[in-house]
């Protein structure tokens, strides 16, 4: 095993070198064209195309009589294109929807392919060794001429996308608008299909008909998590496709009985899962963290506002707000917090130096008072604005303001102040305006 690993890592076997080069080129080409296939919502069509190409491989073999790459690929391309035509025909001429049509064509063509393989192997002449690899993929069985063909297709795909970047992106985003500008959208769609067919059939020896579609779909889907720009997505998807194909091929070369298709798909899936979880901004972990940060911020602001409003109503005229003592019950009277929630929030505020805690008595620090004033000011400005501008009854405002005040940027707060001063509801910028509605239960 370790022997094998060393041979693999040092690329000693010609076979391994051919397989790795071929698979990498294939992964790159599939990752690139896959972006447009996925954006054009043709992903399942790619799957149908791949499965439908199997009978073509065997019929071509029966005709040619040997494992001639170009011959087999031509057969696969014709059968695959026929499958796509069948889907289009069924969708256009019957009441059957596209997903069902794809399911029917995909499985029927695949079944024909499996039966054809038995028939040709039993009654046909020639050496059909290696053709079974077309079902689940066998990169190790690739020859130099296979890699050359993959290289040609990869170049065609990359050049086409460079030349037609503008046309293809317009087609995928808004086909009708493209048509209204006079672009031949049917032709463009056909060309995209042609590139898909080319990419699919050259992938059959390495990845197999069953899993080829995954190499077209997973890299773009993974790339989408990292970017919101099409050009970046293309580069990333090509890189992920290349990486997954190379890794999968390397892994399968360690065990002679392991097909390449599954290992490539698992390598791609690993990239996908990592992207889905850890991509900045669009990934799930980033999303959870963002939500958690927001809910902490909202919780802190609500605490500060509750304290402020409590002190506003109860403090002695002569005593500074920072010297006024309050207890947890004072806060619970106006908020639907449990005592536990309130304590957690208070201990967080204490860590941030906003509150002083002495036993079960609390005081605002001067930083805390400053922060609380800022929070209350934003809240009331927003409330006032809603009342003035949208003519909402004052007692309906609080809840909406609660939702939005926590995300208001400073520029909007400044313009709110400006508007309210114009309206005479605010005397000085930076002041905390009085609440436009009666404060909660604690109001005396």
């Amino acid at each position, binding site marked *: 095993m370790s022997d094998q690993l060393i041979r693999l890592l040092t690329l000693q076997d010609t076979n391994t070198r051919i397989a790795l080069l071929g698979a990498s080129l294939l992964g790159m080409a599939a990752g690139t064209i896959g972006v447009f296939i996925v954006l054009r919502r043709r992903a399942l069509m790619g799957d149908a195309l791949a499965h439908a190409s199997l009978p073509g491989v065997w019929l071509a073999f029966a005709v040619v009589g040997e494992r001639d790459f170009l011959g087999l690929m031509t057969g696969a391309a014709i059968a695959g294109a026929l499958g796509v035509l069948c889907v289009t025909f069924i969708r256009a001429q019957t009441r059957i929807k596209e997903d069902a049509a794809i399911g029917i064509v995909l499985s029927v063509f695949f079944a024909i392919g499996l039966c054809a393989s038995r028939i040709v192997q039993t009654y046909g002449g020639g050496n059909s060794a290696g053709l079974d690899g077309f079902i689940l993929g066998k990169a190790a069985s690739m020859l130099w001429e296979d890699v050359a063909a993959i290289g040609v297709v990869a170049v065609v795909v990359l050049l086409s996308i460079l030349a037609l970047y*503008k046309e293809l992106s317009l087609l995928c985003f808004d086909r*009708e608008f493209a048509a*209204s500008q006079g672009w031949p959208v049917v032709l463009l769609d056909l060309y995209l299909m042609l590139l898909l067919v080319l990419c699919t059939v050259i992938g059959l020896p390495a990845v197999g008909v069953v899993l080829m579609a995954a190499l077209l779909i997973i890299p773009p889907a993974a790339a989408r998590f990292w970017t*919101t720009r099409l050009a970046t997505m293309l580069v990333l998807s090509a890189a992920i496709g290349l990486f997954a194909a190379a890794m999968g091929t390397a892994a399968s070369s360690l065990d002679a009985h392991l097909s390449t298709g599954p290992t490539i798909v698992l390598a791609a899936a690993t990239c996908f899962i990592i992207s889905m979880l850890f991509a900045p901004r669009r990934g799930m972990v980033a999303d959870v963290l963002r939500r958690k940060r927001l809910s902490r911020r909202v919780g802190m602001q609500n605490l500060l506002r509750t304290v402020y409003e409590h002190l506003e109503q109860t403090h002695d005229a002569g005593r500074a707000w920072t010297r006024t003592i309050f207890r947890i019950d004072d806060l619970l009277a106006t908020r639907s917090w449990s005592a536990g929630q309130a304590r957690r929030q208070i201990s967080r505020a204490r860590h941030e130096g906003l509150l002083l805690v002495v036993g079960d008595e609390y005081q605002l620090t001067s930083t805390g008072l400053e922060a609380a004033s800022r929070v209350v000011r934003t809240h009331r400005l927003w409330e006032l604005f809603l009342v003035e501008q949208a003519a909402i009854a004052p007692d309906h405002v609080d809840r909406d303001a609660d939702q939005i005040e926590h995300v208001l940027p400073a520029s909007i707060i400044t313009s709110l102040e400006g508007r309210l001063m114009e309206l005479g509801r605010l005397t000085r910028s930076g002041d905390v305006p009085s609440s436009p509605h009666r404060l909660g239960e604690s109001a005396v």
Partner: protein
Amino acid sequence: MTNSSGAADHGPGSAPPAVEVHDVTIAYHRKPVLWDIDLLLPAGHLIGIVGPNGAGKTTLLKAILGLVPLASGRVEVFGRPLRSQRKRIGYVPQRETVDWDFPVSALDVVLMGRYGRLGWFRRPRQSDHRLSLDALNRVGMSDFADRQINQLSGGQQQRVFLARALAQDAELYFMDEPFAGVDAATESAIVEILKSMRRDGKTVIAVHHDLQTVADYFDRVVLLNMRVVAAGPTAEVFTRQRLQETYGGRLTLLEEAAEAVRLGRVT
């Protein structure tokens, strides 16, 4: 019928109408959607296409744009076959027809308006970028140029679509429900832009569903319900009787009441 009023605006020798539709019939799956449509839509007006759901308003727009096959009849734009006039046409499709999660920025979408003039293989140049930024500026969206389009609100997305059409720098614009699902601020911004387009001599043909604003927004209307019920200047054509004909029993009491108020103001 009322086509004659459209034709009357154009004596022989004057500029050709923006759109001429002759005997057009359109069928989906052998079921006709539009019957024998004859229309003359003069240039330089804001023209509303109004009718109940399923009346074929969008289909008519797409037929004029050559996006659906005609079962019979023909369409001319500025007196010529549509094919030769593509560069003089701008289009705002319904907002829901595209995937707003597509990985492009607002500016990228507006730049697509320039693609028709650029032709095959040529990339947008500096001048195209400038025109597109101007268009975004006109719809009040220049601050959002680099924003990914799924971060825009519905109204902002509609403005981006309008900016894309403005970037087409066309003479004749087709808009499919440009006010659908937008906020009040966006609606009035779009109306202002439409009116300034008319001042610049442009023609706008828009599918519209809100009967209450028809008379405010459009100086001509086409009342449609699988056939042309009436077409002409709003003041002449947008009458209670014609609306009854167009909507049949479907004109609800509420709309009728609103209509009564509206008509009191118009005529």
